[in-house]
Each structure stands twice: as C-alpha cells, then as structure tokens.
C-alpha cells in the first residue's frame, strides 16, 4: 500500500508539472508531451520509456487496489455486520482518513474516464485532436462545465486521499516518531494542497477563458 502509493504520488507530481506547461502555450505543451515519447531514444525504442512507465504505473495501481481491498475485507471480518456499534463517535479521525476507501473508488472511476478522455481521446467533448493541447482546451470549454466540475471534484478527492495517504504511508514505512509527527503531517498537507491546486488550475483557466 505504502510503496505503490509512493510511486503514484511521485507520478502525480511529475504529471502536474507537465500539465502546468499549458500556461506556456500550445508549442511548449505539445513539445513536452512529444518529448515523453522520445525520452531515452535512441537508447530505448520510440515510446519505450513511455511503456515502461505505463507498466510500472499500472502495476502500482493494481497492487494499491489489491492491498486496499484486502485491508477492507480484513476490517469487515474483524468487525462483522453483527457486531456494529449502535453509537460510534469519531474521536480523532479526520475527514481525509474517513473517505480513503470511497474516495479511492471515486478516483479509480475518474482515472478510467480521464484516460478515455485525454489519452485515448475516445470521449472527446469539443472534438478529437492529435494535439494534446487541443484535446485539453476542447474538453474544458465553458459549455462543458460539467466535465470541469467532475475533474475538479476528482482532484479534490485526490487531495484528501493524499492528505491521509502520505502521512499513513510514511507511518507504515516506519518514519513516524513522536517529535517528527507534526513535520510529517505538514508534509502531507503541503503536498496534498500543491497537487490539488496544480491540477485544478489548467482546466479552470480554460473554462474561464484564460487559456486557449
């Protein structure tokens, strides 16, 4: 859970960096997207790096989901439905930790939509295009405000997921110590906030006509 999560967090940060290139114009954005295909070329075959990257990501996602389901199943077994509390108060748990499981399901559904939309371009609101920049700009036009809304909601869910996930992952990897706890929590909050804002900016900028 922690290791696969860490890979995904690092990927998200790289992905966010790429997205922000949209503010440098079509050439920079498309050039960046294209350079990912040629990374390592001619040492690696064309698209080689990209596919290695995709396989590592897919493996991380599958391991992450498998671990989550296993933990959920164990929790169900450890406190079966017949032993539920009549009254249960949240003493310490945060909204972020409370929504890890269902938030994760929402994120998984969003990722499927997201790949169909902007990678494969099968779902193409505003028209399909070979240019990643145009796909992005077409998809988040003001008349497709609902696409933007879903995107923003999913990114906020990712933010909450990271807030608890980064902290929890660090604790699982044995990094947590009483005096480090405030620092670890701050790291989790800052990364969660930066990633949320970084991902929300491009689609909002397009929907509000600042880019494109």
């Amino acid at each position, binding site marked *: 859970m922690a290791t696969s999560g860490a890979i995904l967090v690092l990927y998200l940060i790289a992905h966010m960096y790429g997205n922000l290139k949209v503010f440098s114009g079509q050439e920079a954005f498309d050039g960046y997207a294209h350079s990912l295909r040629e990374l390592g070329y001619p040492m690696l075959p064309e698209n080689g790096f990209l596919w290695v990257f995709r396989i590592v990501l897919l493996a991380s996602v599958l391991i992450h989901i498998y671990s989550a389901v*296993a*933990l959920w199943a*164990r*929790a169900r*077994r*450890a*406190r*079966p439905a017949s*032993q*539920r*509390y*009549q*009254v*249960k*108060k*949240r*003493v*310490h*748990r*945060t909204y972020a*930790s409370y929504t*890890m499981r269902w938030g994760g399901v929402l994120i998984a559904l969003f990722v499927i939509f997201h790949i169909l939309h902007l990678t494969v371009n099968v779902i193409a609101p505003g028209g399909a295009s070979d240019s990643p920049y145009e796909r992005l700009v077409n998809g988040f036009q003001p008349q497709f405000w609902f696409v933007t809304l879903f995107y923003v909601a999913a990114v906020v869910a990712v933010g909450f997921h990271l807030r*608890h996930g980064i*902290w*929890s992952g660090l*604790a*699982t*990897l*044995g*990094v*947590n*110590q*009483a005096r*480090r*706890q405030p620092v670890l929590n701050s790291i989790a909050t800052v990364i969660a906030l930066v990633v949320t804002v970084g991902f929300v900016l491009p689609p909002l900028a397009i929907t509000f006509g600042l880019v494109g």
Partner: protein
Amino acid sequence: MNITLRVWRQKGRDDEGRMVTYKLTDVSPDMSFLEMLDVLNEKLTLENEDPVAFDHDCREGICGACGVVIDGEAHGPERTTTCQLHMRSFKDGDTITVEPWRAKAFPVVKDLVVDRSSFDRIIQAGGYISAPTGTAPDAHANPIPKPDADRAFDAATCIGCGACVAACPNASSMLFTASKVTHLGMLPQGQPERASRVVRMINQQDEEDFGGCTNIGECAAVCPKGIPLDTISQLNRDLLGSLGKGIG
C-alpha cells in the same frame, strides 16, 4: 442526577443481544461509572432481574480489566479507564449508551464482558524475554540511555484493556502489539528475540482476526495510558528490518 441508560444485554456467547433501556434516579455526580452500574445492578437484583455483567477489578485505573464503549467512545468521554470516569462528566437527564468492545477477536461472554484472551495469545507469541532468573542484578549492571528507558517505559504502561481495538474503525490491535514491541525493543534485555518477536506477534494478531492498521489514530486518541501512535511506526520499522533479514 437522573440518568437513562441504554445497555447491551446478551445472555451468552451464542445468543442474540439487544439494547435495553433502564432509568436511574438519584445518581451522585461523585460516583464512578462502575459504581453507577453497581447501583443499577442492586436495583435489578431487588427486582429479581439478571444484573448487568461487566468486567472490573482494581477500580484504580491500573489493571485494564474494565472497559466499555460509552456513547460511542471507548472508556467514555474522559481519557481514562471506565472505573476512573465519574458521573460528573455527564449531565442530569442524559441518555447514556453502553456497549461492549466490538470485534470478532473479542467475543461477548455476557452483556458487557468480552473475552480478551486473543491478547494473551499475542503476548505468548513473542511478548516476552528469555532472561535467566535468580537474584536481581545490580542496578547499574546494564546501563540504558535515558531516552530509551523513557520510551520503553511509556510503551510499557499499556494495560491491555483493548480500548484501541474497540475504537479502531478496522478493529485492529496494532497499538497493543506495537506497545509491547516498542517496550521490549528499546531495552537490551529485549534484543535477542527482537527480530523474531515482531513477526510472531503480527502473525498471531492476523490469526486472531484483528483488522489491519490504516494509521487513522483513533487508538492512541482513546488510550487511557496515552500509548503514543509512533509505537506503530516502531513496529513497522522492526518488521521491515526482520523481513530484510529474511525472518518471517
């Protein structure tokens, strides 16, 4: 004080349980929660009803025998054991819900009494040291750095009441196991078994059908002894070390 109690009643292990409502009048705010239950039981006995079974022993907050979930919080609204909780923490006219610890590994024996021998089996799996017995060694024969001694002592204050499991959304016993691993792992006497201890205790904990830890922190928040959450990270670090050495 007048109090309305909603108490979990269950005749035996295999019986269906249900919540039963009782009204108590003239409860003194200076009574402990268990004394209030004693008053209820006296009343039930006089009415020829079965008294409510609950675990208790020292009533000083040091043995770990008592423990019920009060209004959805393990040991109730104060950070102490149920026996050290007093009725002044409630208001006149309150309705108080009292339930047993709920986890598959803690089956209800009767009413509010649960069987916590799963904790004993976790201890038997690795919560010990192999030390020669005999006369007490010299106090300074084994120097231990003060921070290590403090950390070991903080972890050793665990009384095994089970509130961590009761409060955990996953019904995980991680804080309990981690407190033992940290307690023994910080001291030189605990080193010979350190690597195998954590693996054995975790395996036993899984076998008892406790849930997995997701670092939510409810356990440490309700712990009457204030066992810190970072003991769980200590356990994870020991476990990574053991797995790295091929133990497990």
